[in-house]
């Protein structure tokens, strides 16, 4: 069988891989995108759908801002609407310590254009009368929003195809090998793909490939726990999240334009990456039922109609792996976004395309270089 060849092979068709394919094509490079299942089927398709910057580490805000610029012209660029709704984002707290945390962040991130406003409980309830009486403070960021994860990555994938990317779905790969100057990717069905550059955007499975190149990273696969209510008249506005002292007790929610309210939080479960299955623990659904009405008492009148989960890769330092390999020329990584990748997706694609095409990027991504874990490889060896 003859090998299919391109300038770049991308392994993993989530929002990172699809966006990278799109922007590499925009730069005129030929692209093969390999996806084991369907585009955007794993973490990219089942996450909460936040398109937010607030709450991210300050070091990440330039990348997040770059991504925001792409989100703002999503339809124009990718040809279809991903139900982007920019009605702001709000974090609310119940204690003085929560208020302190929010105020500290608002101060640290004040130069990044988020427009954050600290508000007291009374002012919050005047503006958002559905908020519960226990809330004492909040931080409102008016420009943030959310989109539909089920639609976004597939739209970007189709746009990449229209731009000329060769996308192979349902293509299980056996391995990625360094082959002379370039890379060879062997598929389970016997096909081989070749390119001088390989970009690994394999999400929770990314470290399997980085490990095969001698670069193991400390990542575990976790399953976020989502649920959704029946549709009710649109009334909420901002995506809202409550601070908590125990991460398992956090809760956040967003109302989509057609009325359903998507609720996340309540901690995460471990996921089975081998069988590619992730389940919802009923206990975590119960935690949400307990905590969501503290933020919005009217939740008590609604019903959960469905729960779901997915598989996300979490780094032990919560920072993604993004940038060139520390060992193998021509090899690049963008995975391990630790549950925060959806908003970054289009920006990561543009940055990786820029990096691969020009050898550098104007966006600071140094904290995400895989070399921070080289001691792991040394210990393993």
């Amino acid at each position, binding site marked *: 069988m003859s090998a299919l060849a391109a300038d770049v092979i991308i392994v993993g068709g989530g929002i990172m891989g699809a966006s990278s394919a799109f922007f590499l094509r925009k730069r005129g490079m030929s692209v093969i995108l390999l996806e084991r299942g369907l585009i955007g089927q794993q973490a990219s398709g089942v996450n909460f759908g936040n398109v937010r910057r607030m709450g991210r580490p300050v070091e990440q805000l330039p990348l997040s801002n770059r991504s925001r610029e792409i989100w703002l012209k999503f339809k124009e660029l990718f040809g279809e609407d991903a139900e982007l709704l920019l009605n702001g984002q709000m974090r609310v707290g119940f204690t003085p310590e929560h208020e302190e945390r929010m105020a500290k962040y608002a101060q640290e991130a004040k130069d990044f254009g988020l427009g954050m406003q600290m508000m007291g409980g009374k002012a919050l309830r005047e503006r958002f009368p559905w908020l519960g009486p226990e809330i004492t403070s909040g931080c409102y960021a008016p420009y943030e929003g959310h989109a539909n994860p089920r639609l976004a990555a597939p739209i970007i994938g189709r746009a990449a195809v229209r731009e000329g990317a060769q996308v192979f779905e349902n293509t299980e790969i056996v391995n990625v090998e360094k082959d002379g100057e370039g890379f060879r990717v062997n598929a389970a069905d016997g096909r081989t793909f070749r390119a001088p550059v390989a970009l690994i955007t394999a999400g929770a499975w990314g470290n399997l490939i980085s490990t095969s190149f001698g670069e193991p990273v400390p990542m575990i696969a976790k399953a976020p726990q989502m649920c959704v209510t029946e549709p009710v008249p649109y009334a909420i506005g901002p995506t809202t999240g409550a601070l908590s002292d125990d991460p398992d007790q956090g809760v956040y929610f967003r109302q989509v334009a057609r009325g359903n309210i998507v609720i996340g939080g309540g901690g995460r479960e471990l996921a089975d990456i081998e069988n590619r299955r992730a389940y919802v623990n*009923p206990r975590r659904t119960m935690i949400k039922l307990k905590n969501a009405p503290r933020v919005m008492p009217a939740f008590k009148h609604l019903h959960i109609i469905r729960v779901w989960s997915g598989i996300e890769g979490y780094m032990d330092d919560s920072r993604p792996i993004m940038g060139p390999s520390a060992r193998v020329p021509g090899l690049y990584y963008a995975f391990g976004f630790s549950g925060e990748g959806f908003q970054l997706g289009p920006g990561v694609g543009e940055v990786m395309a820029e990096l691969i095409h020009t050898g550098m990027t104007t966006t600071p991504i140094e904290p995400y270089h895989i070399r921070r874990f080289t001691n792991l490889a040394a210990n393993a060896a």
Partner: protein
Amino acid sequence: MAEPRVIIVGAGPAGVRCAETLVSAGLRPTVVDENRRDGGQIYRRQPANFTRPYAKLYGTEAHRAQALHETFDALRSRLDYLPNTLAWNISDHKLHVVHEERSRALPYDALVICSGATDRLMPVKGWHYAGTYSMGASQIALKAQACAIGRQVVFMGTGPLLYLVASQYVKAGATVAAVLDTSPFMRRVAALPKLLARPAVLFNGLALVAGLKRAGVKVLTGITPIEIKGSPESGVQGVVFHDARGNTHTLECDAVAMGYHLRPETQLADLARCAFRFDQETRQWLPQVGEDGRTSVPGVYLAGDGMRVLGADAAEVGGQLAALALLTDLGRKVPEGELKGLRAQQAQMERFRQGLAQAFPWPAQQAAQLPDDAIVCRCEAITAGELRRVVCDMGAQEANRAKALSRVGMGRCQGRYCGHAGAEVIAHAAGVPVEQVGRLRGQAPVKPLSMAVREETE
């Protein structure tokens, strides 16, 4: 060793007979049931203070209904009965149940799922108008509350329930505008040898049809539903259909009862992670069961119509078989002769089931012919055209992918009512066999879960 903890879900014919057998063997099972009283859908007991006699409520099946109710009444002190309780999730050998806004996790060593069946529905243009009911709902209205769904009711679809419920409506004094059966008459003739496996049941069925005709009800076979006419303000106003020769007719009515036989309620089996297989004969995915109701998951058993639609009598047999399988797996001795006898009865029921499937086939071709503006998924109001668009323009040829991109099956019913027809629409649009479309993954909760529910702390 402590007594094994056994939970039975459902107090219909399968659940009650399963409980009876387990109690006889000295176990104390827990029976969880969504209804307020035992009997299931078929032998649903009327609310307290309603006084209709058995013969009136259950017709030819009155003695069976009464026997089942009396059996359960007699068992009450020897089992733990949780009525009005929804089994909403399963995880890690625990059944999660909710009762009066309290959720509890009940640990089990063995679980027998007797979840019964609901109507199998095929969309038709206009089926979202108020006044369109499933066959089962039409019957529940009558059985539980002595209400008819309308003044002029058309019964449309196929399957034995079509004739049974229409007859019950006639008896109750409602006006049945017509009985419109999509199955061609000749299919019934061809199925006769298999239907003769249960001559008495066959005779009852024929008597129902004859009774309807005697009462002056128009009964047509081999019809094709075209549209339910109506408006958002006044609901259903009529039914348009083609007769067996292809001529178009319009019938005035203010309500339509629809159903195409039944489909097993398989969400709990799915949440218990049981394996499924595609059943070519009825074109649907069913839990994979071995002998006597054993699933692919050790300790999880299925019985009754929730496993495979064999009807109430077979459910009573199936409940006993599942109980005996469970007892065998616990290392108890079970009477060989009884087991053999039950299996022989079940084989006869299975032959009859095949006859029914042959006589009243699922009209898959109707899904292919649905006009683009007909709604497929009523919960989310998604049309056939929108579903076809994600198949043809976005390459979504698999059920869950098509759901993700179109929302078909994403609403309150989670595809219980639109899933089968949706799969047929996808298969036809994609030009692939329907089994290749796969099945919608079941997610909790089994039914919508109130957010006022709190976890019970012991």
